[in-house]
């Protein structure tokens, strides 16, 4: 089973490779090509995510080349499998740079793989787009990493800003998963709350997959919280929390992490989710660029796009725009990417900071009739 699947993938992969190389060669005859590397997970645990990333980036590639490519040259996208692993990500990077001689890279989405490949990327000095959301990735002094998704700190900051400026509340209770994502989020919420003059009256934790939150919710209520920030990792847990919050008589307002507006959570919580606030990376159909992407994607693949993979589309577009301005010089491309301000992408408006963070906005949504309704796109500015 695994073998046939693998063979299928390899065949598919080889075909796409041949097709792109073939296409590239034809173009090369006309006016040359620009080789760009892409290292998605084609095999291994994340293979299904990888297939969505490939679909997203190929749509961008098709549009770019159909519009005449860059400065008269076609883009040749070289895909190298990262095998869903850290060593694989590093090996894929090396192969792309040393054998395939690519000019720039669309890298990986897993933070741990970004960290594994980071030193090598710095060593090569090659512009690389990443989708990992761990805050530290762009703060480790590597000028070649460009993040095209909102990092984890933006969610926390947006929560605090929204509570202070829009809801005008001051006493905050925090409930978070005790895993790395939840604890990290809880820490950031506490830090920003202090910075913005809000009081965290109570901070409670839970273990992933807990089923009874009575103790935590009551403790938050009795501490006098006006609003609860629920920093959950999993949609299932989020749904249970929402329901028990509702059953305690909704004693405070509720603002959740993205898991709280996830489709799975809303399907489970149903009525209990009505009226709660949550943060979303983006709301489908909120901008012109987003709507167009949804349509084009549907036309191309006859299915809905995957929200977690659209960053490869935005990444390649931003990279190509930078190459248009800077030519084929890595240092100049780096400058051009950092100079990108106000670019309207699928995921939102990109404005790069010197750190290499492109997105600084998330959406505040409220659950209405089982779907997240956009209240506000919150740009937390460039920190």
């Amino acid at each position, binding site marked *: 089973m695994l073998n046939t699947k693998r063979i299928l993938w390899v065949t598919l992969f080889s075909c796409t490779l041949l097709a792109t190389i073939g296409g590239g060669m034809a173009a090369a005859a006309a006016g040359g090509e620009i080789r760009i590397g892409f290292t998605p997970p084609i095999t291994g645990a994340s293979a299904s995510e990888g297939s969505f990333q490939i679909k997203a980036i190929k749509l961008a590639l098709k549009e770019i080349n159909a519009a005449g490519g860059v400065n008269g040259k076609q883009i040749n996208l070289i895909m190298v499998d990262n095998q869903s692993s850290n060593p694989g990500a590093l090996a894929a990077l090396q192969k792309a740079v040393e054998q395939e001689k690519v000019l720039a890279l669309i890298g990986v989405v897993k933070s741990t793989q970004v960290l594994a490949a980071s030193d090598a990327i710095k060593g090569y000095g090659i512009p690389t787009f990443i989708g990992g959301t761990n805050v530290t990735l762009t703060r480790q002094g590597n000028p070649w990493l460009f993040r095209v998704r909102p990092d984890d700190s933006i969610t926390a900051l947006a929560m605090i800003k929204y509570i202070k400026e829009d809801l005008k509340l001051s006493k905050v209770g925090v409930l978070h998963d005790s895993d790395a994502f939840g604890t990290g989020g809880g820490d950031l919420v506490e830090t920003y709350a202090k910075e913005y003059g809000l009081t965290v009256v109570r901070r*409670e*934790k839970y*273990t992933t*997959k*807990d089923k009874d939150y009575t103790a935590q919710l*009551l*403790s938050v209520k009795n501490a006098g919280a006006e609003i609860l920030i629920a920093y959950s990792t999993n949609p*299932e847990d989020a*749904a249970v929390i929402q329901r028990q919050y509702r*059953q305690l008589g909704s004693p405070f307002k509720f603002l959740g992490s993205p898991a709280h507006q996830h489709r799975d959570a809303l399907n489970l919580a149903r009525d209990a989710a009505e009226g709660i606030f949550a943060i979303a990376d983006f709301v489908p159909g909120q901008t012109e660029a987003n709507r167009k992407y949804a349509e084009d994607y549907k036309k191309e693949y006859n299915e809905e796009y995957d929200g977690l993979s659209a960053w490869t589309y935005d990444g390649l577009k931003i990279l190509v725009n930078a190459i248009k301005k800077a030519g084929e010089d890595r240092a100049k491309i780096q400058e051009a990417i950092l100079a990108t301000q106000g670019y309207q992408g699928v995921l939102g408006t990109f404005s790069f900071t010197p750190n290499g963070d492109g997105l600084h906005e998330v959406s505040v949504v409220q659950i209405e009739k089982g779907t997240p309704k956009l209240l506000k796109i919150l740009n937390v500015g460039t920190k």
Partner: protein
Amino acid sequence: MDWPTNLQMLTAGLAMGSIYALVALGFVLIFNAVGVVNFAQGEFVMVPAFVAVWLMDMLKIPFGLIYLITVIFMGIFGIVFQRVAYYPLRNRTFLPVIISTIGVSIFLRNGAQVVFGAEPLLMHRPTPPNVLKITGVFVDPQYIVIIVCTLALLAFQYFFFEKTSLGKKMQATAQDKEMARLLGIRVATMIAITFAYSSILGAAAGILIGPIFYVTKEMGGLLGLKAFCSSIVGGFGSVPGAVLGGIFLGIVEVFAAYYISSAYRDAFAFIMLILVLLFRPQGFFGEKIAQKA
């Protein structure tokens, strides 16, 4: 003291404890009957939950009928389980049987994912979703249903084991298989019935918690572990021990999470386990049994 808060937590603790008690009872009955811990006991909760959800989606029939079908299904499931996982190994030591139950548990989890998918499912509630407010305490009606059903099941079980001939035969088998066989009791049949009954207890737990837990392939894992702790805290092999151990653990968890630390909520069950094993290894209700030669 903050009475509404404490009462509220007591209700939640009692409800969770009742579920632990049901699953722990399943452990104990099978252990008494065949001397083996059934590590698939948690899956005995997960399977009926999936079956009930599936039935609810497929057939538009009243809740009662769905529960009845699920219970009958789980009775048969218990007998098949016994036939597959225990019976062929009955003359071996306990180790192969334990490994076999672990194997079945892994098979069931992954089987559930293949058949029902990885997404958590919603089980419809027989009770209204709105909470009842009783003297300042918010109570989920489902919690009350859980507590009442557990009490009813325990009463039934007491009557069954103490007053009926079949129950007495099952008890005799659990106490001494050799002697029971000499008295003309069909030991193999009694064991099969015990498995069926354990499995039905799982069905009760699955149906009761399905609406508040959501149904996932992993739902039996932690539940099975906590129930196992409960039965050891109560005194492994003791029926009242399993019930009281479960309820005790459920209540301790909630109160410890509120008054001590919510981060270590799940740890308290296991801390209790270690304390009991250190200071009262026979459990609260277990009798000290000298090792038989």
